[in-house]
């Protein structure tokens, strides 16, 4: 029975929320529904982590847990297949955190709150669905479900040049999915040596390992670029600054926090996992590209003046780091990549939430026009500093553990070329410090620039709740990285087989 599987509820709950939202009549009911939905997801995600650890503790070392499999479309052998490994579990937890934070960050959504939350939860459905599927077809389906609401969320509720941004973002990501589709279909037709037994199931494909090497050279770049667009890989990253700048707060949070992780996760789950040969042969090309992302994004962020642009370029840099580490294909580096996904998800969501809250008060995002916020809104400013410190890799916060895993792991690569690239990547810690401190210095410290800002108020209870949730996540990762490393440990067995 499908409903005895815990995973399906990650899709069922958002859909139920959608249904209930249709029935709501006023803002109060809308809020009640979304808060219940988001809390349920959060509880479910925590419970999933708990039971996952319990199963692992009981000695269940199989690749995927909580498996479920049902035939969906017989002629093409498409299944509705569910299953999670450690990496998906932590990413589901991350998504639940950010959905929870996002709901409170958009407490006073205006106009059309009901419709906003409808799309918001549709997007969440796609995100959770993507992480729990192990069938390429459902994966791609949920991927598209997550992308489309973005267009409306930015186009309707965005700010600034929103039409352009929404169009650009959607078109670029759709362009990515075109590559992806090609790759997925290609993989499907080579999924098995027996042409009558083709499958979309990732685990089976990995087991069969039947994709010819010549095809891998073609399919790996297709899938990697397809997902890489969403992971903001240079030179396909330009949707990110415009899209994030125009998007409303909660959407920026969800998009930078979770949706960009879909890219990293997809690169890992489909491109690298299924085509290890090409991943090893071709990784130098993509390492150079992602290495450029890391440094280039950080350098660009140094001269931006719009808060959201700074953070968007910083996301380019940090997400570049995720892909960079994945491609290094060492155990520690991949662990670091997963930690970086978590860390970046939380801190960038926190950043966007705070920027949204500040923007909601000052009505400007230009750092040249603001200053001395520490005096006016101390709570928000302290949160901002914490987010900044997490971003520049302060020990005790999440960024540090992720970056150190990545650097140490990448540097263990036996090849000199990879080590030199790692050193290039490490320079980002200095550049990150430059733009973070520049932003903190201009925005929070110094004298108040505009007299009108003096009357502004500090955070409300829902804003505090939203930011606190994320800070708790950041600090937990920073202090207890071993806990997360423990969860994802068993899922990296394939990496060992890849290196050397």
């Amino acid at each position, binding site marked *: 029975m499908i409903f005895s599987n815990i995973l399906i509820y990650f899709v069922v709950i958002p859909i139920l929320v959608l249904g209930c939202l249709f029935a709501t009549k006023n803002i109060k009911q809308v809020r009640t529904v979304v808060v219940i939905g988001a809390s349920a997801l959060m509880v479910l995600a925590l419970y999933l982590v708990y039971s996952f650890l319990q199963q692992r503790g009981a000695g269940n070392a199989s690749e995927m847990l909580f498996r479920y499999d049902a035939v969906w479309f017989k002629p093409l052998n498409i299944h509705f297949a569910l299953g999670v490994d450690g990496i998906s579990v932590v990413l589901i937890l991350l998504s639940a955190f950010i959905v929870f934070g996002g709901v409170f960050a958009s407490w006073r959504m205006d106009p059309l709150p009901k419709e906003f939350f409808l799309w918001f939860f549709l997007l969440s459905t796609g995100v959770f669905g993507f992480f729990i599927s192990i069938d390429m077809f459902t994966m791609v389906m949920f991927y598209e479900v997550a992308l489309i609401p973005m267009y409306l969320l930015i186009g309707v509720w965005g700010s600034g040049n929103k039409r352009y941004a929404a169009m*650009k973002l959607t078109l670029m990501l759709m362009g990515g999915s075109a590559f992806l589709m090609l790759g997925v279909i290609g993989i499907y037709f080579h999924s098995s040596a027996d042409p009558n037994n083709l499958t979309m199931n990732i685990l089976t494909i990995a087991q069969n390992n039947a994709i010819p090497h010549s095809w891998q050279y073609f399919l790996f770049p297709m899938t990697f670029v397809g997902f890489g667009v969403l992971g903001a890989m240079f030179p396909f990253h330009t949707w990110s600054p415009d899209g994030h700048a125009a998007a409303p707060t909660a959407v920026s949070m969800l998009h930078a926090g979770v949706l960009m992780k879909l890219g990293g996760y997809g690169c890992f789950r489909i491109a690298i996992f299924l085509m290890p040969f090409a991943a090893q042969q071709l990784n130098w090309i993509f390492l150079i590209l992602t290495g450029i992302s890391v440094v280039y994004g950080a350098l660009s962020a140094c001269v931006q003046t719009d808060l959201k642009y700074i953070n968007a370029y910083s996301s380019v840099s940090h997400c570049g780091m995720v892909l960079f580490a994945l491609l290094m294909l060492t155990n520690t580096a991949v662990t670091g990549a997963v930690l970086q996904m978590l860390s970046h998800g939380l801190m960038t969501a926190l950043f966007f939430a705070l920027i949204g809250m500040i923007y909601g008060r000052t009505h400007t995002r230009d750092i040249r026009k603001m200053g001395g916020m520490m005096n006016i809104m101390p709570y928000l400013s302290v949160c901002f500093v914490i987010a900044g410190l997490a971003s520049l890799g302060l020990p005790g916060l999440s960024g540090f553990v992720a970056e150190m895993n990545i650097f140490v792991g990448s540097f263990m690569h036996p090849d000199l070329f990879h080590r030199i690239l790692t050193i290039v990547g490490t320079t980002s810690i200095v550049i990150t410090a430059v733009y973070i401190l520049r932003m903190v210095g201009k925005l929070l410290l110094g004298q108040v620039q505009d007299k009108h800002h003096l009357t502004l108020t500090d955070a409300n209870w829902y804003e505090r709740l939203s930011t606190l949730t994320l800070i708790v996540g950041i600090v937990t990762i920073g202090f207890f990285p071993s806990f997360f490393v423990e969860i994802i440990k068993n899922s990296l067995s394939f990496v060992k087989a890849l290196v050397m």
Partner: protein
Amino acid sequence: MNLNYTIAVLILPFLTFVFLGLVGVKMKKKAAGIVGVCSMGVTAFIAFAAAFTYFFGTDQGQVIDGVRQQLQVFDYTWMQFTKNLVIKIGVLLDPISAMMLIVITTVSFMVHLYSLGYMDGEKGFQRYYAFLSLFTLAMLGLVVASNIFQMYIFWELVGISSYLLIGFYYTTPAAVAAAKKAFIVTRFADLGFLIGILILSYYTQTFDFITLTSNPGAVISSAGGATFLGCSAMAWAMTLIFIGGAGKSAMFPLHIWLPDAMEGPTPVSALIHAATMVVAGVYLVARLFPIYCLEQGTMTIITVIGAFTAFYAAAVACTQSDIKRVLAFSTISQIAFMMTSLGVASQMLDNGVGYMASMFHLFTHAMFKSLLFLCAGAIIHSVHSNEMTAMGGLRKYMPICNWAFLFGCLAISGIPPFSGFFSKDEILVAAYAKSPLWGIWLAVVAGMTAFYMFRLYYKIFWWNNPDYGDHKPHEAPWTMTLPLIILGLLALCAGMIPFGKYVNLARTVEYESGINWMVAGSSVLIALIGIGLATKLYLKENPKPDRMAEKTPGLWTAAYRRFYMDEFYQYITHHVIFAHVSTPIAWFDRHIIDGTMNMLARVTHSTSYSIRRFQSGNIQSYVWIYLIGALALATIVMLCVI
């Protein structure tokens, strides 16, 4: 005391930081201050107990065969990279870490107490104490680190607490800029440290200090013959790690942040930028000293940079007019002494005297330099200015401060029996042993030290007698003077400790050291010449100094402007990196990459636009096209049939 409890010195400040950080705002200012001071007092007590147990106890394996052991008294695995590369949070007790425990907790406790008076009435008093606790935690964690990665972690924490404390007066743009500069410059150096750690751990497969330093030969040979750009991999690693240390310890050319860091509250300058954090680089080199010993190239770099910095900073200090800046450059110069001393040390030369001298000077310097800074704080507190021109004749108004400052000046100048004499003498001995060049060089710098310190002293306490008007300078409250008295006594006596018996390179219990009267006599002579010169020029108000400055305009201005190092960096960061790297990248992103994407969109758009005519919606034209098409088709068919 059971040494396993030493971990409490990390836990207590951490709890204090969390407590004051979370609920401090709701507390009364005084209460928060008292919580901070008490917690620090207990921490200091535990640290002293641990250090004394380590040095004088015998029951926990401290000494075996006449050699002090490195004791790993706490060990917790925090994160595991691979099987061998593990970050542990541990406590490693050995002579230098035990000595550092004493130094840090003493100065920190003094500063905590002093701040009760100095920071009285400041906005954000609670925050100040929270940050002080954070700093103490970080610094103690750094010195007791049992592996290089733990050191790096606390190294970063030290950096951030320094950032937070320099920027304590966050509404002042200068403080914000100084904090940012300090963090970024040291971060840049930390990059070297990090890469150094990566290279070191790649070859040795360990972070652990004991494993690394107990068999340095194996560390060097682990890299095999690996070279990069002509230098061996280990030379790169050790030099890069030294760069990390040079950044924190403000060695030329990474020293530019330290003078600016004086924008922070003065007790903070005393604690962080004089006594503790800035010696972290020296401590790092000392920690890995056995490996450095085998990398002679790196040692030469350390010596040259140290010696040059010592001279450079002393030269600049002779011309500065802001008392905290003088002290800051004097700090740079003194730390460079320690660094040089490490650079010239080796086990072969005089039983490793350079190593011991460096640590000794670190110890005494911490006492007298924090004393000088706290005095400067008391003076600033009563005069409300940092500039020497606003001071003069203060000996009448602030007698305690006068005596304490004089003690500090005598100590730093190396006049017996003050503490600085003993440690500086050892450094000179080590330098002469290596080569007379370094010996004479350092002796000259020592003379300059005496000169600028007494210039400072006379300018503040003698010189002239300005009219202070209604607002007469006054002695500080007891919370401020008590630390001055204690530190003054320490500056007087700390040199009498037979330091070599406790800290030396081989960690032996027996250590032969004595004062080399040849060297000592000449160095005292030079110091006296410096003091005499300062007395002649600055005791009473006179136009001689100004005239001298006028006669050598180029030199004087250059020294006053710190030989234009700041302008140089400003140029590099703003005109090269920002203007010629970042801005073009941003432009490239907006116009080339984005332009390509926009062009794709535009091409699609214009193509659609041009073929749109076929879908005009105008039925008449559809019919027309249909008709022509049908006729054409019919003609073709007919032609084919016929």
